[in-house]
């Protein structure tokens, strides 16, 4: 039979009391078969679970002039949030060194004239990975946004956002574009 030992601390002077709650049902608390400090209801569990979570949000610092009918990488060059430094604003890509499943969000807004359509895609490792949005029927402005989950291997995998406008004098709008994401599950 395993045993439970309640040990005092030779340096401390306080008295610690284990007390019962006001209840009428018999209950058993089972300690985990692991070493470490057991959390109590007074512990900040929410903070414990999110303080090290990978997250990022990057935007365009200035409008980006682009060519019509051409896939162009969106130059997200300003980080609003980059918890672990995984987003490189000099080359506009997200490359985490923690493997797992990530939720990725991309919003792209553009202006121009005679806009026929705006397509947005996420590129993974330099190649098209998934279409985020396909919008048409605009005139002088357009926008697309979308989200999805994907697995990143924590070493070589990286993500970039691309936009494809069909318009005259298109440009991606600095104040309305964002590339963001966070780690959902380490795997």
């Amino acid at each position, binding site marked *: 039979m395993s045993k439970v030992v309640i040990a005092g601390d030779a340096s401390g002077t306080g008295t610690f009391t284990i007390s019962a709650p006001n209840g009428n049902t018999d209950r058993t608390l089972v300690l985990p078969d692991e070493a470490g400090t057991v959390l109590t209801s007074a512990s900040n569990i929410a903070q414990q679970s999110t303080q090290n979570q990978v997250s990022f949000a990057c935007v365009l610092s200035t409008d*980006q002039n*682009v*060519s*019509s*009918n*051409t*896939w*162009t*990488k*969106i*130059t997200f060059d300003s980080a609003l949030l980059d918890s672990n430094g995984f987003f490189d604003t000099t*080359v*506009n890509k997200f490359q985490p060194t923690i493997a797992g499943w990530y939720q990725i969000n991309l919003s792209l807004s553009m202006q121009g004239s005679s806009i026929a*359509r705006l*397509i947005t895609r996420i590129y993974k490792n330099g190649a098209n990975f998934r279409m985020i949005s396909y919008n048409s029927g605009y005139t002088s402005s357009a926008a697309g946004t979308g989200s999805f989950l994907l697995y990143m291997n924590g070493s070589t995998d990286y993500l970039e956002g*691309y936009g*494809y406008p*069909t318009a005259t004098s298109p440009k991606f709008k600095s104040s309305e574009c964002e590339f963001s994401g966070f780690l959902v599950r380490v795997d």
Partner: protein
Amino acid sequence: MNLYEKIISIYPELAGFDFASGVITLQNDSDGKGDYIKEWNHQTLPRPTEEQLA
């Protein structure tokens, strides 16, 4: 004149062509090298030469 416009001037018949279809793909990686032809798989029109695009 950007790359798309140059291609249309060389091949006016591509003016109504869907460049998002994957047959002809133009791309710019925002690395300072500008627009380039990433894919050219048109069945009848040959890929423009560097001289034509200069």
